[in-house]
C-alpha cells in the first residue's frame, strides 16, 4: 500500500504526514457540518418568517375582531384580548341585511356554477370531439371571450342589463357568467386527451352517443370538473366588482358588498367591528381551504400552468 501511495502522491508520505492529513480533514468535516447546520437553521428561520408575514395579518384580524375599540389602540398590542368581545360579530351582522347578503351570495355563486356546468360540458365536448363547419370560428369566439376580462366591459353590460330590466336581480348577476370560456378551454383539453380507442370500444358495445358522453366521457374528466368548480365558486363568492356595479339597492347585493359597507355605517375607525365582519366573509373560505388545501392549490395552479 505504502509503495503505491508514494508513487501516486509523487512525494513520500510518512506516518506523521498521514496523521496531519487526517486531522485537517476532520477539521474540515467539522466546519462543513457546522456550515450545514447553520444553513439548515437559516432555512428554517426563513420559512418561519414567511409563515409569519402571511399568517400574521390574519391573526391580527381575529385578534382585533375580539377587542373593544379602545383596546385596538393600545401599543404594544395585546394579541389575545383579556375578555373577548363577541358582541362585535353581532354588531357587524346588524349593520345591514346580512342574512339576505348571505343568501344572495349562495344563490348567485351556486346558480352560476350550475349553469356553467350545463353549458360548458356539451360545448367543450363538441369542440373536442366533433368536426363541424364553422367550429374554428365558434371556437374563436370562445378564445376572444377568454381574453376579455369582465372588468373591461362592465359599462356596456350594465346598459344591456338595464335594458333587459335585470339590474338588482339574481338573474342579472348570474346570466353574464352562465358560461365560462376558461372552463370550455380547460375541459376541451381534457376531452381531447381521452384516447379514441375508448370511444371505439364503446361504439362496438352499441352505446348511444349521449350514453357515451354521460357514462364514459364525463366521468373521465371529473377531476378537471372538480377543479373548475372550486375555481369558479371561490371566484364568484369573493367577487366585489360585479355585484357593486350591477346593483343599485340591497335586493341582490352579496356578502362582500355588505362587509365593505360596514365602514360607511359604523364610521371609518371602528376596526374591531370591521374585522369581525371581515371574518364572517373570510372564515368559510379559509375553513374550506384548510380542509381541501391540496385540491384547491391544484385547482388554481394547475389552471395556471395548463
Amino acid at each position, binding site marked *: 500500500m505504502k509503495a503505491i501511495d508514494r508513487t501516486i502522491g509523487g512525494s513520500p508520505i510518512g506516518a506523521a504526514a498521514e496523521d496531519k492529513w487526517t486531522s485537517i480533514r476532520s477539521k474540515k468535516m467539522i466546519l462543513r457540518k457546522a456550515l450545514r447546520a447553520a444553513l439548515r437553521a437559516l*432555512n428554517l428561520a*426563513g*420559512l418561519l418568517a*414567511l*409563515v409569519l408575514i*402571511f399568517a400574521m*395579518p390574519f391573526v*391580527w384580524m381575529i385578534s382585533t375582531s375580539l377587542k373593544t375599540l379602545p383596546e385596538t389602540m393600545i*401599543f404594544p*398590542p395585546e394579541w389575545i384580548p383579556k375578555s373577548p368581545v363577541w358582541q362585535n360579530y353581532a354588531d357587524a351582522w346588524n349593520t345591514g341585511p346580512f342574512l339576505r347578503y348571505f343568501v344572495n351570495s349562495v344563490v348567485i355563486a351556486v346558480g352560476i356554477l350550475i349553469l356553467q356546468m*350545463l*353549458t*360548458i360540458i*356539451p*360545448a367543450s365536448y*363538441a369542440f373536442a370531439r*366533433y368536426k*363541424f363547419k364553422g367550429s374554428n370560428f*365558434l371556437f374563436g*369566439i*370562445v378564445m376572444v371571450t377568454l*381574453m*376579455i376580462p369582465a*372588468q373591461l*366591459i362592465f*359599462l*356596456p*353590460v350594465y*346598459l*344591456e342589463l338595464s335594458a333587459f330590466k335585470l339590474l338588482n336581480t339574481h338573474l342579472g348577476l348570474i*346570466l*353574464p357568467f352562465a*358560461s365560462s*370560456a376558461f372552463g*370550455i378551454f380547460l375541459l376541451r383539453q381534457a376531452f381531447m386527451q381521452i384516447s379514441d380507442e375508448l370511444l371505439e370500444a364503446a361504439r362496438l358495445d352499441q352505446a348511444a*352517443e349521449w350514453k357515451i358522453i354521460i357514462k364514459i366521457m364525463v366521468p373521465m374528466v371529473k377531476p378537471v370538473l372538480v377543479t373548475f368548480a372550486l375555481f369558479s365558486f*371561490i371566484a364568484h*363568492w*369573493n367577487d*366585489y366588482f360585479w355585484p*357593486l*356595479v350591477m346593483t343599485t339597492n340591497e335586493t341582490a347585493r352579496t356578502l*362582500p*358588498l355588505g362587509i*365593505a359597507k360596514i365602514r360607511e355605517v359604523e364610521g371609518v*375607525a371602528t376596526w374591531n367591528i*370591521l*374585522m369581525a365582519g*371581515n371574518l364572517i*366573509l*373570510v372564515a368559510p*373560505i*379559509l375553513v374550506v*381551504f*384548510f380542509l381541501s388545501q391540496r385540491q384547491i*392549490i391544484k385547482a*388554481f*395552479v394547475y389552471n*395556471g*400552468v395548463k
Partner: protein
Amino acid sequence: MTVWEKLRPYGMVAPAIIIFALFFIYPIFYMIYLSMFDWNFVSPTKTYVGFQNFKDLLAEPDFRQVLSNTTVYTVLTVTLTTGIALLLALWMNRKSFFHGFVQGAIFSPHIISLVSISLLWSWLMDPEYGLLNWVIGLAGFGKLEWLSHPSTSLISLVMVAVWKGLGYNALVFIAGLQSIPADIYEAASLDRSKPWTTFTKLILPMLSPTIFFLVIINMIGSFQVFETIAIMTQGGPVNSTNTLVYYIYEYGFRFFKIGYASAAGVILLVIVGILTMIYFKLLSNRVHYR
C-alpha cells in the same frame, strides 16, 4: 349522417356561444359605438361627437396621471411579484410536510376576497394605530403615512398586491420547476455544470413559458386593478392612486359621462388586447420547451 347528427354539435355549443355573444362580444362593439357619443345615460338622445371623447381624454391632465399611475403600479407589481416568487420557488421547491404547510400559508391570500384583503390592510396600514407602523417603530423607523400620503399611497397598494399574488405565482413556478424532468439535472451534473450555469442555461430557459405566462397574467390583472383602490383609497389622495378601471367606474357611475367612460374603456381594451397578443405570440414561439 342524419340531420340530427349534423345539427348536434351546433346544439351543444349554442348555449355557451349565445352567452358569450350577448355578454362579451356584443358589449365590446357597443362600447366602441358609445365612445363616439356624448350621453348621460338618462337623456333620450345621444349626440354623435366622433373622436372628441378620445381627444378630451388625452388632453386631460387627470387622465394622463391615471395612465401613468396604472403603468407604474403595473410595472412595480409585476416585476416584484414575479421576481420574488421565482426566488421563493427555487428555495421552496421541496416536497416535505413543512414545505407543503408553508406553501399553503403563502397561497392563502390568493383565494380570499379582495374586499377582506383591502379592509385588513387598511387596518394594518392605519397611520395612527396600524400594526405596520408599530413594527417599523420597533425597528427604529418613524411612522409612515402609507395610504394617506400621495408619496407612499401607490407603493402601499403595490405591497398589498404583491402580498396577495406572491403565493400563487410561487406555486405556479414550483409546478413549472417540477415539470422539468429530473434527468436533465442529472445529465447537467454529470457534465460538471456549475449551479449558476445550470440555472441560467437550463432552468431559466425551460421555465421561460411559465415566466411569460405569469408576467402577462399579472400585467393583465394589474391593469384592471379596482377593488383595492375602491375600498382603500378611492383614487386618492390627490388622484395619486386613481387607475383606469376606477376612472371608468367613476365617470360612468358617478358623473354619468357614458361616452367619455366608454372611450377610456376602449383605451384599456387596446392595452389589454396588445398584451394578450404579445402573450400568445411569445407562447407559440416558446412552446417547444414543454
